[in-house]
């Protein structure tokens, strides 16, 4: 792209109701037909964005422009395309929905909520014949993330499903804690990343969402009800398509999110009363919250009027306890459960090797002697299979089972080699799950895709 005649890069702090008031360029005869009135709102300039065929309706984009990823259930036309080294999702929608979602995703990311990264809103599109085309929202595809349909269709075990729903419940709790009402909670609107045998959920669709200073009980309950109905619908659909085991009951499974959410919500927010002499319960509550992956940044302790009882209520809780500790000690960025797993190993390593050593220093040694050798041992052609932190987690698991089976302490190097040969080599690539050939085998090829408008 040597010339960018009239496209504008801008970041307008627009909000939901301000549509129609946005400055728009008018096409004149001197402008190129493609970029005539293209209006691009983006946080950072990705010049390659302009190479995509914006003058063609998404539905008709040539295969050469597309990345062959599975398209989920969406009411919009959605396509994946390559942009530089990454993959982007492009969704056609109305201008105010696109702008609303773009700014909402930016706000959520600033609030540290796991969600996809908004790249741009592109409006003012028209075909070479002058036909007006719908504006699009562009988001970056989350590397190593999996749509639920890919997970279910692969080897669906009932406990996979439970973990998935737990991850969804945790995401919903985190969103509700910061005052985000989702309005369309569903597995389709979520992406999952592996997290040491469990899953971490990411919000993908913020179209119906709004941020409030605080959510009412009604809003939280309604979000939960939407989640239950949508999850049941999604599972019924998979059952109809023969994509999950028959023993999975969609209705009973969808109920799980209610329990999982409520348990978590009350642990995080509920007031607890106890006798003055039981002060240890303050520490116990905080430890329980830490185990769930939350830090307590502020809590309120009040003595009841007669002075014999104490009331404790966590006020500000912040997810990411284990991830933050791992990051602080090692600089490694990992999901919550991965971090917990790695921290456990790191702690064990310290006890075994140098219990007298300072925690930070021991962590540094662990990275050099345990983490990095494992990651380095993975041949380059297998590096797209799983995220490094997930590989290390799996190697540690593998070594433990191997040692138990063989009744000896299997050396790390041997465990790593065995893992690579027996496990990793046989996995599919999940960096950008999943290319067409792979998709077809699990029944989400282009033919069974579905979009409404």
């Amino acid at each position, binding site marked *: 792209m040597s010339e960018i005649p009239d496209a504008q890069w801008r970041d307008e702090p627009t909000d939901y109701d301000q549509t129609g008031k946005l400055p728009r360029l008018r096409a004149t005869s001197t402008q190129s037909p493609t970029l005539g009135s293209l209006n691009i709102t983006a946080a950072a300039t990705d010049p390659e964005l302009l190479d995509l065929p914006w003058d063609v309706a998404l539905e008709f984009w040539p295969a050469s422009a597309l990345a062959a990823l599975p398209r989920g259930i969406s009411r*919009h036309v959605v396509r994946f395309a390559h942009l530089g080294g990454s993959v982007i999702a492009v969704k056609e929608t109305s201008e105010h929905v696109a702008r609303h979602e773009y700014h909402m995703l930016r706000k959520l990311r600033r609030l540290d909520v796991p969600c996809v990264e908004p790249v741009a809103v592109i409006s003012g599109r028209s075909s070479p014949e002058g036909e007006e085309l719908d504006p699009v929202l562009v988001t970056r595809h989350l590397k190593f993330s999996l749509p639920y349909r890919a997970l279910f269709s692969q080897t669906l075990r009932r406990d996979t499903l439970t973990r998935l729903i737990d991850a969804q419940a945790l995401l919903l709790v985190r969103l509700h804690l910061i005052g985000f009402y989702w*309005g369309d909670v569903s597995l389709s609107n979520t992406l999952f990343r592996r997290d040491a045998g469990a899953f971490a959920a990411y919000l993908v669709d913020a179209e119906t969402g709004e941020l409030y200073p605080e959510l*009412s009980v*009604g809003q939280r309950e309604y979000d939960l009800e939407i989640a239950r*109905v949508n999850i049941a*619908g999604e599972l019924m659909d998979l059952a109809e*398509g023969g994509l999950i085991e028959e023993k999975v009951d969609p209705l009973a499974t969808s109920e799980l999110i209610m329990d999982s959410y409520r348990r978590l919500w009350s642990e995080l927010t509920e007031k607890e009363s106890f006798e003055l002499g039981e002060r240890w319960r303050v520490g116990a509550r905080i430890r329980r919250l830490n185990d769930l992956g939350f830090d307590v940044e502020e809590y309120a302790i009040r003595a009841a009027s007669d002075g014999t009882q104490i009331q404790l209520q966590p006020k500000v809780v912040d997810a990411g306890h284990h991830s933050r500790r791992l990051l602080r000690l090692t600089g490694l960025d990992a999901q919550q459960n991965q971090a917990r797993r790695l921290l456990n190993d790191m702690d064990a390593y310290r006890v075994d090797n140098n219990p007298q050593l300072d925690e930070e220093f021991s962590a540094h040694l662990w990275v050099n002697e345990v983490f990095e050798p494992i990651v380095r041992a993975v041949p380059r052609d297998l590096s797209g299979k799983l995220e490094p932190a997930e590989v290390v987690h799996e190697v540690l698991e593998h070594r433990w089972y191997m040692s138990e089976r063989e009744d000896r302490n299997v050396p790390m190097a041997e465990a790593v080699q065995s893992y690579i040969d027996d496990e990793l080599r046989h996995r599919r690539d999940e960096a950008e799950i999943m290319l067409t050939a792979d998709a077809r085998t699990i029944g989400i090829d282009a033919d069974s895709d*579905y979009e409404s408008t």
Partner: protein
Amino acid sequence: MATVTFDQATRVYPGAERPAVNKLDIEIADGEFLVLVGPSGCGKSTSLRMLAGLEDVNSGRILIGDRDVTDVPPKDRDIAMVFQNYALYPHMTVGDNMGFALKIAGVSKEERAERVREAARLLDLEDFLDRKPKALSGGQRQRVAMGRAIVRNPQVFLMDEPLSNLDAKLRVQTRTQIASLTRRLGVTTVYVTHDQVEAMTMGDRVAVLKDGLLQQIDSPRNLYDRPRNVFVAGFIGSPAMNLLELPVADDGVVFGGITYPVHRDILSAAGGSTVTLGVRPEDLKISDDGQGLQVHVDVVEELGADAYIYGHTTLDGKDYDMVVRVDGRRPPMKGDDVHVRPEQGHVHLFDTTNGLRLADTV
């Protein structure tokens, strides 16, 4: 089916200076289609969410039929939020896509089938019930989504800007469908939009809100013909009503070079030496004799039979934008100066001090 009542319903957000919705009083009749409209931040969506149970009501009550639902959880209110989610499931038939929520609610197979058939008949989807959604057109898919809400037989439909994510063509088509369908079903419907054209074309009655306060609730015709205050006068109608602050004379209002006759009793009710005169673009006529208010033409928009003049005028040192509808065959040119006068009996007068309508008989 039921009536809906907002009884002094108030919502105050923590830390906010003024209520988001302030003592809202609305009685919606059984089967009525009511539209809540207003600019951003007027409280229309908050009012709808209060009815849905998504917002706490700080004071006042909300009733559905005779039942006070102020503290009832959303799912127990017997309402249906339309278009919250209308992604369709690819492996399920159209019928199952419409009826799956009933299955979750434990409705028997026979009753499900009956309700789905009935909804499909209304939506003209009977022939597609056993097909997969892939076989449907965009408009038909939209109707399946409506079917999901219909099969639940709710007492009230709630719709919050349901057309905002549709393209222009589908928007107009769906607008008509929603309006006719809800009337055929006879289900009470509360519909929120920021678009006054949508409000005027769809509502049996329209409630105009601003800053959390109800400005007027009336039929579209009355809102247009008898706006209760300057805000409603300026908000309803496209292009908007011309509003000018004019000096009062003994026997009328000074409109440029002429005096528009107004009865003395009406003028004496006004609080100051000026009144605000409102006149719609179609009620201004170009005078052939050069009498009236001088308007400088900035833009002429020709629509065929009619044309709109977008211009400006200066009164007492103050600039006013003016819009005048003229005969499309002989429009003035850009840059012209024309004189306009209101048609007798088609003027709205408001008290400049408080913005309220002065009288209906001018």
